[in-house]
């Protein structure tokens, strides 16, 4: 059986099961009520994309810095990196958002909740990025550094022309995967009242009492973003696997 057919088969079977389940529920569908709020959904969806992309950029920078800390020979820097990564990865994003917004941002006088949202999301994602980057650099064999030194490259040139081009290829697939997680995790930004996709759905639900009509499009909207990204991640992985 060809692969696409297998995928199609599984999707159709799953859809049939879900349709059956919905058919058994006595539910009064009211799509027009929710359709009236389509602009709000679109706004929220675009905000989710913008917040996720901003967080991807900032968390990449944080991740690079943190991965350098993790590999530092200075105990203090290594400790900063390790404590950051373990603390962030060991606690729920929900708690980080609440403390970040109501305590820390408040204390330093940062009022723009969108800025705080991107920062907290970036700090959260940066801890995962740090491990991705650390792993990517560690995967380049030391013989490559040897060869770079042997042809007379400076340490900076060696990083620029030999190590980074190879490491970036290695980390691109997991970074694309991390973006998928970021997009879904950004739904928690609703708890600090950022008008992203999930909050839009929650609000429309509050106006219309049409829960399923709000949350089904929500799921579809996230899949619309995450499915192509997952495909991209898999494609990148195949492509760079062949080359090394």
């Amino acid at each position, binding site marked *: 059986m060809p692969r696409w057919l297998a995928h199609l088969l599984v999707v159709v079977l799953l859809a049939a099961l879900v349709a059956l389940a919905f058919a058994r529920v006595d539910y009064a569908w009211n799509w027009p009520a929710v359709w009236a709020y389509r602009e709000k959904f679109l706004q929220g969806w675009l905000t989710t994309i913008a917040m996720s992309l901003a967080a991807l950029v900032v968390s990449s920078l944080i991740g690079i810095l943190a991965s350098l800390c993790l590999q530092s020979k200075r105990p203090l820097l290594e400790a900063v990196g390790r404590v950051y990564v373990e603390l962030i990865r060991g606690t729920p994003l929900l708690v980080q958002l609440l403390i970040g917004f109501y305590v820390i941002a408040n204390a330093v006088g940062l009022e723009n909740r969108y800025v705080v949202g991107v920062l907290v999301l970036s700090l959260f994602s940066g801890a995962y990025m740090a491990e991705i980057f650390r792993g990517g650099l560690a995967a380049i064999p030391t013989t490559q550094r*040897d060869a770079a*030194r*042997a042809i007379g490259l400076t340490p900076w040139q060696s990083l620029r022309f*030999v190590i980074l081009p190879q490491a970036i290829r290695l980390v691109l697939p997991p970074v694309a995967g991390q973006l998928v997680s970021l997009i879904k995790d950004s739904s928690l930004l609703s708890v600090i009242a950022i008008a992203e996709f999930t909050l839009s759905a929650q609000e429309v639900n509050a106006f219309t009492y049409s829960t399923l009509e709000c949350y089904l499009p929500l799921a579809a909207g996230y899949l619309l973003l995450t499915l192509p990204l997952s495909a991209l991640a898999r494609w990148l992985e195949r492509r760079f696997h062949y080359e090394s």
Partner: protein
Amino acid sequence: MNLVVTDLTQRFAGTTVLDRLSLATGDIRALVLVGPSGGGKTTLLRILAGLDLPVAGRVAFAGRELPRDEVGLQAYRKTVGTVFQAYNLFPHLSALDNLLLPLVQVHKLSAAAARERVREPLERFGLAAHAHKRPAELSGGQKQRIAILRALVVQPACLFLDEPTSALDPEMAAEVLDMIQELKLQGTRFVLVTHEMQFARRAADEIAFIGDGRVLAHGSAAEMFTNCPQPRVRAFFQRILP
């Protein structure tokens, strides 16, 4: 090359790999290092190539001492070439770009001048047709010949080759050895670590037998292969020569 090594000592994690090794060659073109595995050949070659700093001792080429700090060694490495057993080509670059990288980034040639510099050697060694392939698409012999060219096109004062044929099957090894032989005839100076004794005999001006971190015997190929006074060296050659 007039290589003079004096009391060279190297230790890794408490293990002494080179033990006050001393060696002085004549003004020769080709020095071949032979001896049992783990005897210190590669360690010596890496120090000569400026890749590692010894814990003690001195090395001088043609009267000039090797620098003893990483900054000085980096400048020194620009003037020599190193070839590794496992090729160590850059897998993300085509064969051609592997050759151009040191020319453009280290020796500051223009892209056009660098291409012109590598064109003739690529053709002479039958690699022009493979220049645009990535290392993964090349055979072992082609990879190693590209690696030798990468070390050679910068016109080094000396080439250091660390068991360049050990990872190759006999046919590919022959390709690489032919190339080294041709380079020697054209005047390239090199220090070669190898287990190919027939080739050592043919190409070496002098052979040094390294074992237990020292030079156990040193002389011309003829002196070394026939009636070497050192019993250990004699036994080694008798075991591995047909």
